């Protein structure tokens, strides 16, 4: 069942590739603006790199969150999904997984490439990749709660940022912290394990919260 939902959402995303690409381009452009604006001061660039890449990833994932449930809501498929004989949190989990694959995974994959502009060493680029790989599921999972809560509201796009961005802060701190530690030459494993713990906790709780929020939004 989970497989079908993921497959359905991936197929829908594939039919609307432009949406997916715009998120990736947004990420690449925002990250690239900083080296262009600051100039070739490698020391400064290296210092700001973790924060810049991570903040850009947060903003890029905000862009795609609005679409997580809104399209299904408008054409009535969301109420059909609610009426399938399976726990709603599984439906939510499937949709969130598909959202992560479509909207977040490309960012994770391209991050080491855009990180090169900040004069990061190879090990640091790997840590950047790893921190995003652990951290972006958190963004999708927590973001899904916000997307469900703001469903059908006017100005939901702005509201979702206000609602969700503060909840992203722990992921931002530990994610960027891991990369920073690697730049300083110390071990990033403490940051990464905290990030992993955060991912597991949000995996356990957010599908339920999202399911409850969806039920309220669809009443």
């Amino acid at each position, binding site marked *: 069942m989970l497989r079908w939902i993921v497959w*359905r959402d991936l*197929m829908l995303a594939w039919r*609307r590739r432009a949406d997916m690409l715009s998120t990736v381009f947004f990420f690449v452009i925002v990250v690239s603006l900083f080296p262009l604006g600051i100039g070739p001061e490698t020391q400064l660039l290296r210092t700001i790199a973790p924060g810049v890449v991570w903040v850009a990833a947060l903003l890029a994932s905000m862009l795609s969150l609005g679409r997580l449930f809104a399209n299904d809501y408008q*054409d*009535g498929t969301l109420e059909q999904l609610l*009426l399938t*004989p399976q726990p709603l949190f599984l439906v939510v989990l499937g949709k969130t997984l598909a959202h992560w694959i479509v909207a977040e995974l490309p960012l994770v994959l391209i991050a080491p490439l855009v990180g090169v502009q900040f004069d990061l060493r190879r090990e640091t680029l790997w840590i950047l990749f790893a921190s995003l790989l652990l951290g972006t599921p958190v963004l999708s999972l927590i973001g899904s709660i916000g997307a469900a809560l703001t469903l059908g509201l006017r100005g939901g796009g702005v509201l979702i940022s206000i609602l969700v961005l503060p909840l992203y802060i722990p992921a931002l701190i530990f994610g960027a912290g891991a990369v920073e530690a690697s730049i300083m030459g110390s071990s990033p494993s403490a940051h990464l394990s905290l990030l992993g713990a955060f991912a597991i906790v949000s995996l356990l709780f957010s599908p339920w919260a999202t399911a409850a929020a969806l039920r309220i939004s669809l*009443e």
Partner: protein
Amino acid sequence: MRGDRRLFSGLDFAVPAGTFVQLTGPNGSGKTSLLRILCGLLPPAEGDVTWEGANIRSLGEEYVAAVTYLGHRHGIKDELSAIENLRITNALNGVDVSKDKAHGALEQMGLAGRESLPARLLSEGQRRRVALARLLVCNTKLWLLDEVLTSLDKSAVALVRSLIENHLDGGGIAIVATHQELELAAGRTKRLELTT
């Protein structure tokens, strides 16, 4: 209850198997709300909905598996083709529909040759037909249909009528909100009129 407004109260009815209930009433009288309460999307402000003697809240997924609800938004994905729409919706409901069976159902709904077109290229009535094709392949007992006859032509309405008749013959129940008359064989139609 919608907002602060009480749409209806004192509503008490039982629907035996093999019955067709036509839900009528002026716009805004609560037909859609009643259907949404019956399918479990909307909790009633007061009272219970029971299915085979048990509250639908406690039955949960067991009840959902016995119901097909078609809302006035058809639940058709524009990006998917007719056949993909049909097969995916059914797969999510735990009914595996083979390609041949899906083709057959769409053909019966008069969509032969248009199965693989993206649904956004279909007309409103054709999309409605795609949604209705689900009734041919699902094997649920209770059908809740909300304004499904809008934008359908005469032949499609006749098709829906025969679909419902077959469903009733098999011991099913259909509760349909509609302004149009669905002239079913006498004796099995119950009318439920909501007033404002």
